[in-house]
Structures are given as structure tokens and as C-alpha cells.
């Protein structure tokens, strides 16, 4: 294209290199046969082995998956409802309320939920407290995605459905839902990723006795840095890559269906 010239390409490439080099190093050293992350000694899978033998790490992974799935489920449903509500009822208050948790720094959310759980609800911190916390901060993301999808849509579709005699429920079920499905899927995947990844909010709302993945990694980084951390990092990156690819496949299949419907 005329408007992108070589200087832009160079700048862009440099940023990509900046983005990827650290991660590449983490991945490469996960195969390094040395306790220190400084010199390459030899290829080994021993760190991955150690990881799979690390009972606590495995429990942490399980716990994180449970939390991620539960909270993305909750966040998707609540966030979709929120997105629909904001789009239809156009209330300023709703917008501010639903998007505020995203705008706040995570530390404030974490601290306020900690105090709330303890002082008011007298809740013992544990898996449930983390799930609630994650759902809360993910609702906004899903709501934004659903809302933008709705905004881009042509309102006349609903009107024609109504004209053809569809009831409110049929309208929602057969028209709205399929159309916002890609947004819901994107929202669910985003929530899943955010939840698995979340450190700060989990740090404050986790209870005792339940290892959670990012906290395990944090402890490992601070206490005994072994290449096991590299190994778990690599695996996590693969997981998120996998999730994103699924997301793309799923949402594009919905888009494909839609295009087909439109052409008929």
C-alpha cells in the first residue's frame, strides 16, 4: 500500500522483536539442562517431568481451571444480559456501573472484595470467593464486546422478525441470540483467559489451602527460581494459544453461517 513505507515496517518489526524475545527465552530455557537460566547446557525434558510430579502444581492447575470455567460462565451470562440491557435501555447509569470494574486498578478491586468478604459476608476465603471476584471483573469485558456487536447490527432485522409475527421470545431465541453468539463466545474466551491469568485480585481474595496457578508461579519466582517456572509458562502459553485458535474457529463459523443466511 502506498501509505505504509519501509520506516513503518522497521519500527513495527522492532516492536514485535521486543514483544517476543523475552517469551522466546523463557520457552527455550525450559528445555535447558541447567538449574540456572543463564547458559545453555543441553536439551532436556526433565523440568516438564518435575512439573508433572509436582502434586501442588497439578492441584493449582486444576483449581485455576475450575475457577476460570466457572467465572467465565457466570461472567458471560451476566455480561451478555448487561450488554443487552445497555444497548436497549440506553441508561447512562448502567453503562458507568458495568464498565467501572474494568477501569479500576485491580488492586482496588482485590482489596475492596477482601474487606467485603470478611467484614460483611463473613465468608471464609476460598474457591468461591475467587470465582465471585473473577466474575465481577469479567462482566464488564463481556458487556463491552456484546454491546459493540449489537451496535454494529442492523435493527431492521428485529423489526422484520416482528412483522413476520415472531413473539418476543422467538425474536430473542431465533434472531438475537445467534447474532450475538460470536460476541458471547469471544467474551467467554476473554473471561477465561483473564481468569487463568489473574494475579492481583486472586492474591487478595484467595483463601488458605487452595493453591492457585498464578500464586504458585509468584511463589516460585520469589523463592526458588528453577526452570520449572519456564516449563509451566510454556505450557500456559500453549493453552492460551489453543484457546484463541478455538475462539477464532468458533466465531468465524458463526460468521460464516450468518453470511450464508444473508445471501439467501
Amino acid at each position, binding site marked *: 500500500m502506498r501509505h505504509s513505507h519501509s520506516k513503518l515496517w522497521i519500527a513495527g518489526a522492532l516492536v514485535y522483536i521486543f514483544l517476543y524475545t523475552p517469551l522466546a527465552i523463557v520457552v527455550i530455557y525450559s528445555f535447558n539442562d541447567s538449574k540456572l537460566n543463564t547458559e545453555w547446557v543441553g536439551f532436556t525434558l526433565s523440568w516438564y517431568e518435575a512439573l508433572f510430579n509436582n502434586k501442588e502444581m497439578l492441584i493449582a492447575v486444576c483449581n485455576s481451571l475450575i475457577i476460570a470455567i466457572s467465572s467465565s460462565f457466570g461472567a458471560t451470562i451476566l455480561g451478555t444480559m448487561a450488554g443487552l440491557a445497555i444497548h436497549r435501555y440506553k441508561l447512562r447509569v448502567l453503562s458507568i456501573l458495568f464498565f467501572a470494574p474494568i477501569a479500576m486498578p485491580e488492586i482496588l478491586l482485590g482489596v475492596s472484595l477482601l474487606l467485603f468478604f470478611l467484614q460483611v459476608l463473613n465468608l471464609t476465603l476460598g474457591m468461591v470467593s475467587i470465582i465471585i471476584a473473577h466474575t465481577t471483573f469479567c462482566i464488564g469485558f463481556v458487556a463491552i464486546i456484546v454491546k459493540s456487536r449489537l451496535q454494529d447490527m442492523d435493527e431492521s432485522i428485529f423489526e422484520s422478525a416482528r412483522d413476520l409475527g415472531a413473539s418476543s421470545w422467538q425474536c430473542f431465541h431465533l434472531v438475537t441470540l445467534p447474532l450475538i453468539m460470536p460476541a458471547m463466545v469471544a467474551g467467554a474466551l476473554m473471561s477465561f483467559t483473564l481468569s487463568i491469568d489473574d494475579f492481583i485480585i486472586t492474591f487478595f481474595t484467595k483463601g488458605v489451602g487452595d493453591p492457585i496457578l498464578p500464586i504458585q508461579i509468584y511463589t516460585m519466582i520469589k*523463592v526458588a527460581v528453577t526452570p520449572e517456572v519456564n516449563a509451566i509458562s510454556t505450557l500456559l502459553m500453549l493453552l492460551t494459544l489453543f484457546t484463541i485458535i478455538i475462539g477464532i474457529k468458533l466465531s468465524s463459523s458463526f460468521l460464516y453461517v450468518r453470511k450464508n443466511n444473508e445471501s439467501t
Partner: protein
Amino acid sequence: MNPRRFISAIAVIFLQSLVLSFPSQADQKINTTVVAKEKNVLYLFNWNNYISADTVERFEQYCNCELSQDYYSDNEEMLAKLVAGATGYDIIVPTGNAVETLIRQGALKPLDKKLLPSFKNIDPRYLNSSFDPGNKYSIPYAYTLTLLGFNQKIIQELNLPTDTWAIIFEPQYLEKIKGRVTVLDSQRELMAIALRYLGYPVNDTDEKHWKKAQELIARAKPYWAAFSNTSYVKELAVGNLWVVHGYSNDIFQAALDAKNTGRKFNIIYRIPKEGAVLSLDSIVLHKDGSRPDLAYQFIEFMLDGKNSAELTNLIGSGNPNTHAIQSIRKDIIENKAIFPDQESFTRLEMLRDFNRNQRRLLGRIWTEIKLR
């Protein structure tokens, strides 16, 4: 009803119920931990690396139960988590001042010594401490000293003293080791040795003395590489750091690592002549624990000399158990920095907890120190 009124109605109901819920500190906690409490599990809240994996395994066989561990790297962290309502622990291993706090909070169960016949194994020097007279609540488990660790080769080359805190406070020495020193990232520990170096007791609460200690620290800080609670161990063993302010068992580990990886230097450690902090860690029973029976089994198990010695042999911690002496490695027994002789013992002091005003003030001093 339009949405606006609807929302405000909900909000009002909400706020009212919120305000009303305050005075009620219901005793019933909604317990949401996933692990079922009927399983044979003993919940232990312990320092990182403070029990040998072999010991854990043997105990699990002995009691036919599971030992579930959660960790902390700082007493403050442990206390903060407990204050924040962390429940479910049967056994905690706090240091003396934290034991005092927990006792005053009423968070511990008194011990029934009749169930602990091996209690007599403990060295009387470590019993009846100021934080738990009569040992109503705590059983000494292990102790560590906070002192200085050195890379012997380099310090000898630089001709620096190894028996005084001056090496980390005086610019004349610091100049030679700039960027190669770390201190503990702990408000209490660092202030304690600063006070001690100036000649004041570690539990001094005189604000003027604190100011002097703060100035001492601020003057030395530019030469320090970092405040570190854990990562200094590896850096010392690898040779990146030459002097560290750290825990005796961590430095022991570093010395071991350095030897095992064939480094060309030794790690040595000393109790400085001005004194050092003694941290006596004791086993206590938390009142919210659900398996006191297993807990007593654990304590009795750990009071046995052989089991107790395992930790010492593993991490080089001090051992208050007289029956353990025969099972401990000779080189560790003879190390004065781990098993201080009577003369050094008099130079050791234990930390006591501060009240909340002092904590707040110390917090501010600490913030000032950290802000460049």
C-alpha cells in the same frame, strides 16, 4: 415502573441491609473451601522450606493421614492472613513475637502437656520465654538467627571485617562492595539490627532512636543491591552477592549449594559482635483447627529427637531439642552460628510485637526508607 426508579429502589434496599449487617459479627462462617473436612488431613501453616520432605512422608505413614501445607515467608504475612480470616489451619509455626500476638488475640488452644510426653526433651534455655511463660501454648520447634553471610574469598581479598554489622552500614566498607550487598526486606529485622548496631535494644520504641536508625539505613541504602527475603540465597551461592543480611538456615543452604556446584569460594557466616536477632519458632495449635488429635500426634512426632534432627541436618536450623543432638551432623553442631555457645547466646535478642501505633509509625519510617 421506569428503570430509573427501579434501580434507585434496589440501591436503597441494598444500602439499608448493608448498614444493618454491620454490628452482627456472626460466628458462623460460610465455609467455602473445596476440600472436605472429613478426610484425614492435618493442615499445617509453616515457613517455606521448614520441614523435610522425608519427615512429612514418615509422618503421613505414622498417622495414616495427609499433611497439607501452606506457606509464608514472613511472620507479618502469616499474621496478616490470619487476621484476614484465614481459617482451617490446625498447626502454625510462628516466631516468638507472633506467638505473643496470637496468644493475646485468643487465637490459640492451650496445650495439654499430658498428651506430649516428649516435651521434656526441650532444652530449658528455650523454654519459659517472655512471650509464652510456662509454655502454655507453644512448643519450641526450631530457631534461626539473623546474621551476616559472606563470600569468604572476596571478603578476605578486600580485607573486610566479618564480625560486625558495620560492614553493611559504614560507607567506608560499603564502598568496596557496592551493589553486592542485600539486606532483609523486613521492617522489624532491619530496624532491629540497625538499633542493635547503634547500641540500643532491638525492641526499643523510642522515636528518637528510630530516627537515628533510619538515618543509618538511609545512608547505607545507596550501596545495597536490593532488599531481599529469599532470592539472596541463590545469588550468594552463585557469587553475585558478597555480603548478605539473612537467616542462618538460608545461608547454610547457600554454603551447601556453593560447595556442591564446585564454586571456588566458601560461604561463611558469623554472629556479629554487636549481637543478632534470635527467632525461636514454635508449634502452636490454632483454635479453628479441626483435627487436634492429629495435631498432637504431629507435635509428639516432632518432639522425637530423630525427627527433629532431620530438619536441622537438612537446612541448618538451630534445634532446641536435647535428644536431637546425637542425630545431628557433627559439622552443624560445631557451627557456632547455628548452635551458639553460652557467650554468644547472651548477645542474642528476640523480637517482640509492637502495638498498633508503633506499627503505624514503623510503617511510615519504612516507607520513607524505601522511597528513593
